[in-house]
């Protein structure tokens, strides 16, 4: 285990004005891992992702990516290989599916690379290819989620973070989406952090998980172990 972690967060503290959202979080994620962060509403899960993606500034602690500190501005994070699929998808409604994907490839300079990635995305989500010329705003919720993930894939990220990917989707689509996440992880070796309310689903998908409550990690470990942990079962999986 001499390999250094891809992402290392140490004693992170984040405030919204005077309110502290994250109280000293530390985590380490190795290359190729698939990690879930579960927890109740308002636990600070989204804040954590936004901070790692550079959308929110932090007050204390440190974040290092591939052993280096993070750049100063949010747009530089994508060039480094960190990509966040934001909560609520945020599809560009006035652009076609194809153009949405091209905006995702903003940081990619080579034309051939863009073409190659486009093939990959269409391969993974054939539905997007069918809707190539359609406006982003006319897609269904599931298709929009596919587009959001595909758009993030276009940048060729090393670390992909998914914020509530199951939000507002039909159960069948959710299962399909999570299968695709596994596929992206295994096929392209993309490291993933998934933040989810649906704890069962997240634990089934990920190798490892962190349980978050009121801005702190209260538990962490192998996701199969966590599934069988009575405390987790009671609080997040609804067992009695």
């Amino acid at each position, binding site marked *: 285990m001499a390999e250094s972690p891809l992402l290392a967060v140490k004693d992170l503290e984040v405030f919204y004005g005077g309110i502290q959202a994250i109280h000293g979080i530390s985590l380490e994620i190795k290359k190729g891992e698939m990690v879930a962060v579960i927890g109740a509403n308002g636990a600070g899960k989204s804040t954590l992702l936004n901070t790692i993606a550079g959308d929110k500034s932090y007050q204390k602690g440190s974040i290092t990516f591939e052993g280096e500190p993070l750049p100063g501005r949010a747009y530089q994070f994508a*060039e480094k290989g960190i990509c966040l699929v934001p909560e609520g998808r945020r599809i560009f409604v*006035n652009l076609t599916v194809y153009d949405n994907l091209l905006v995702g490839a*903003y940081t990619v300079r080579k034309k051939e690379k863009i073409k190659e990635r486009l093939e990959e995305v269409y391969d993974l989500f054939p539905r997007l290819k069918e809707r190539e010329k359609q406006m982003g705003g006319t897609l269904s919720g599931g298709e929009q989620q596919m587009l959001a993930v595909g758009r993030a894939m276009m940048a060729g990220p090393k670390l992909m973070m998914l914020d509530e990917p199951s939000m507002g989707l039909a159960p069948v689509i959710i299962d399909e989406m999570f299968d695709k996440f596994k596929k992206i992880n295994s096929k392209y070796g993309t490291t993933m952090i998934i933040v989810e309310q649906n704890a069962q689903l997240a634990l089934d998908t990920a190798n490892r998980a962190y349980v978050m409550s009121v801005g702190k990690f209260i538990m962490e470990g192998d996701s199969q172990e966590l599934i069988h942990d009575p405390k987790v079962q009671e609080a997040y999986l609804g067992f009695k």
Partner: protein
Amino acid sequence: MGYLEGISISICINIVCVCGIAILTGYMGLFSMGHACFLCLGAYTSACLTKYLGVNYFLSLLAGGAVAATGSVVIGIPTLRGKISGDCFTIATLGFGEAVRILMANIGVNIFGGATGLSGLEHFTDLKSSVVIAVLAILLTRNYAKSQHGKIALAIRDYADASELLGVNIFREKLKALMISAFFCGVGGGMMAHYYVYIVPNIFGNTMSNNLLTSVVLGGVASITGPATATGMLTAMPEAFRFLDNWRLSIYGLTLLIIMRVRPEGLFAYKEITAPFTALSRWIKTKLFKPTVKA
């Protein structure tokens, strides 16, 4: 010069300026209340170049555009940075516009003529060249809209945060749009100077900025031919209804109100008027490529 020709030249000048503002407001979603100052910079630059140095008219237009684009950097860098909202930019341009106008009235009085203006310019702006420049402006704007820059502008307007997370340098893209729009306005200003042959700082006031912005809002966001048509209408309409005396101003206001109420996103939002252009290109093709058979 005929009356109709005069109006047509005015329309062409306005189209050039509106093309720039269509990029800034229609695509990037930034509202500027002081774009007349870029016309002012362009007008004075090109007027001075032709008057004192005898530079070619078209070169002086380009120089005017370049100076206006450089001027826009001054306002763009502090206001488009970081997460400052678009409102800040709007208010800053309002102030900047006034500042430039007053500056031009007070500095270099023996060169720029101060508040009494710069007169004795040559009448270079004729209908033919104006139409060519207007068409060129429309084509260039269309290229911007179809290119990656235009798509990214729309993406930023939809969700700035999401596009930043994808690695889009929002500041750079916004500044680029602002510079292009200022360039177009500078060229328009140069044309205006050589059409009126006399410029005073006061004509580049708020009214002009507002008229240009109105054309874009009325013509529709994310469209080029829409705003171009709208500015044509707005320039010609007051002339056409001149017999109504001051009532035409009320009609003007009423028309705007009705359109705002019925189609708040503008007449041709997200649409282009393509039919005449396809017809034209077909006509040109048949003219050019049809073998002329002589009996």
